């Protein structure tokens, strides 16, 4: 559907818009989709040459559980996020803008490899973007 949407954008704006999944959570594939996404993300972060070192001492099962909650929450899946807030979670790391961009790129790579469509990737990144100020320079 997506290539068709893109190619006929000037003609079928309304028609394409109606095919959009109402909840990002559903577009991600619900519980199973979010779990698959989080597995892919965490694997990619560990493997990344630049940001992998930031995850060396991460407790993966705990991190994945919180990340599932966070993504579920911001995609309107109705979950409660029980982890540290974003400022606390990144406090003392003093992440740079460049590192944040590396993180976004790694996330996009992981989503592409896991088969998430570009439109869904964009919607998720749009919801993560406002957190940037609470993540960098903490």
């Amino acid at each position, binding site marked *: 559907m*997506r*290539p068709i*949407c*893109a*190619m006929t*954008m000037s003609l079928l*704006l309304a028609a*394409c*818009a109606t095919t*959009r999944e109402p909840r990002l959570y559903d577009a991600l594939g619900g519980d199973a989709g979010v779990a698959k996404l989080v597995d892919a993300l965490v694997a990619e972060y560990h493997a990344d040459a*630049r940001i992998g070192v930031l995850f060396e001492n991460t407790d993966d099962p705990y991190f994945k559980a919180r990340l599932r909650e966070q993504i579920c929450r911001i995609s309107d899946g109705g979950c409660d996020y029980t982890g540290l807030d974003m400022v606390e979670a990144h406090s003392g790391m003093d992440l*740079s*803008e*460049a590192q944040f*961009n*590396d993180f*976004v*790129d790694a996330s*996009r*790579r992981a989503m*592409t490899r896991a088969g998430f*469509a*570009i*439109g*869904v990737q*964009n*919607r998720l*990144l*749009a919801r993560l*973007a*406002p957190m*940037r*100020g609470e993540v960098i320079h903490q």
Partner: protein
Amino acid sequence: MPRQPIRSTLLLLALSAPLHAADEGRLQATGGLVTIEGAGGGGLVPWAAMAGLSTRPGHDAVLGVSTTRVGDFQLDSIGLSASWNDRFELSLGRQQFTVDRGLLPAGIDRRIGQTVFGAKLRVAGDLIYGDLPQMAVGLQYKHSDSDLLASALGARRNDDAEAYFSVTRLFLAGPFDRNWLLNGTLRATRANEIGLLGFGRADDNGYDLVGEVSAAMFFNPEVALGAEYRQKPDGLPGLGESDWRDVFVAWVPNRRFSLAVAWVDLGTIAARPNQDGVFVSMTGNW
């Protein structure tokens, strides 16, 4: 791969396309191109975004070449642009404008060259994040080689400075869940045909304020479709200078390379109407 059908429909993607998105630097091919004047931006319009993919901390340098082929003229450009900390950009551009054989008597040089020195400073906002779009001010000093021609046509001088203010934003997940880049630029200029035909005119030494816009939609991080419009001053009497516009496809397979192909409409140049044709631009950075 959901992107595959899109690729196959695009002519320029007949070239072998690497499968990985940009894996470092700024998000989403936001480095853009090097304009025909050397600044970071689209093909014709400078953006508030710095050339290349420099972040804080970091620096980057970009080399861009372009050629524009329309009915009676050809415009070739080469630009070098460097940026620091996603904050400050210095650029150097060189243009060569060639008039088709047959339009000028034998013995007259058919080429006009111009050098453009540019500087751009980001003053507020961010391309993607935060409340404010990225805003930048830019200065360009242009020196056209065409003393004789420019003065014969009625231009006051063959070098000049101009200033611009640009606002640029990448909107994540806009219409069609695609990322959209929008740019608006206001420029104060006295250039005739961007300076190739000199600056000012005998009866008017004032600056004109002109508007320029770009819009692009990213099908995916590697392929964008967009358009530009660049308003230009009225120009020299009798030459009928036009606004310029184009529709482009840009391909950014990785952070080192980008290619744009456009249909460009330059309107009337030197009283020759219907100057539309093809624009091709390649950018490489390191």
